């Protein structure tokens, strides 16, 4: 075995490596999240073009069609009524949420392994991500 970047100090791998299923689970999360979000986005984009036959590049660039669906109540009622814009928003939310689920699964595996520092780090990252989406974004809108 070759050694790169290895230490002159003895490597203290007292911590256990992540289990193989952690890699498999995260691969699945990334693929499923991407596939689901792109499927929703492509289908709802096609529907948007059909529903808005008069739309042009100019009208699309001048006004973001999903502004009314950026809150939980707005998104919920939009999805319930079948609004195409709400499904476009859902596709974006799934895409943004995919890395969050990946961080959440990291939190789970580090916690299972009893690694307190790495558990705290992944939890802090998760909290910051949610803070950006749920607090900072709406505040600065």
């Amino acid at each position, binding site marked *: *075995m*070759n*050694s*790169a*970047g*290895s*230490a*002159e*100090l003895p*490597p*203290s791998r007292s*911590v256990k*490596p992540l289990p193989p299923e952690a*890699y498999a689970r*995260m691969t699945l999360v*990334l693929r499923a999240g*991407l596939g689901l*979000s*792109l499927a929703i*986005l492509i289908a*709802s*984009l096609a529907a*948007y*073009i059909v529903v808005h036959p008069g739309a*042009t*590049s100019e*009208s*699309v*660039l001048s006004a*973001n*069609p*999903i502004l009314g669906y*950026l809150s939980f109540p707005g998104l919920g009622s939009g999805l319930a009524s079948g609004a195409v814009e709400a499904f*476009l928003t859902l*596709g*974006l*939310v799934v*895409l*943004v949420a*995919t890395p969050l689920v*990946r*961080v959440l699964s990291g939190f789970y595996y*580090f916690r299972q392994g009893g*690694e307190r*520092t*790495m558990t705290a*780090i992944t939890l*802090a*990252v998760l909290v*910051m*991500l*949610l803070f*950006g*989406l*749920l607090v*900072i*974004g*709406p505040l*600065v*809108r």
Partner: protein
Amino acid sequence: MARLSFRVDLAVFVVLLILVAIAAGLVGSLTGLGGGVVVIPLLVILFGASIPIAIGTGFVTILATSSATGAAYVRDRLSDLRIGMFLEIATVPGALIGATATVFLTHANLEDAILIALGVVLLAIIPGSLARRNIELPPPLPSDARAQRLGLAGEYHDNALDQDVSYQAARTSPALGVMFGAGVVSGMFGIGGGVFKVLALERFLNLPMKVATATSNFMIGVTAAAGAGVMLAAGYVNPVVAAPVAVGTAFGAYLGSRLLPGLQNRTVRLLFLPVIAVLAIEVILRGFGLP
């Protein structure tokens, strides 16, 4: 460069966006800089998109390509999940600060300043992309106490070298500092910041080239999610623009990585980097209000 911000039917617009994004994804993949560095200037220059909408689209592009290519790296265990998640503690707050700064600058009608800064950053990452060491396995360095305590080490099988390679991280403190800066740049401009991340992983943490590239790709998605969350909730991600661009860029990146693997070297970077330099200069000129 002529501005083609014309008025076309939405279906035609979507097709144009996909075609431009495929080219951007291809160039971004071949240069190793990611599709965002090409697609964001093109959205502004060719289609007349506002800079925050272009940046919001850049985040979606990163999320799509990172999830697509990152999944393969994770499956092959080239991405070091432990090191990646450790460094996200620095990139995520950086990205939140960067994205928030962009929103405030937009509200203050300082979009031209963002454009100029974007052009400068694009110019700055060009030498950065050429500064990669291209050393497959770096010489050993002493590991620091934090890296040892957190077990920031690993091993992988290198197919090209046909051997198992072990590595251990070093100099975690400066790496965290560089990662914070990379997060700010990524959050502010909607680009992946992979150049800075890879440099930090290679030069400070002393990771092998393949692990550095794969771990950077793994981290980029979470950094982008931080910026995208702010921009989406602030209303600066337009899915009608972002969806076709994300699909096209992901496909272009796939083409770049699958069909032309032999071309991803320094020569090809030298060939395509002038394209990015031209885009950067065009963006700066536009920021100064020059034609």
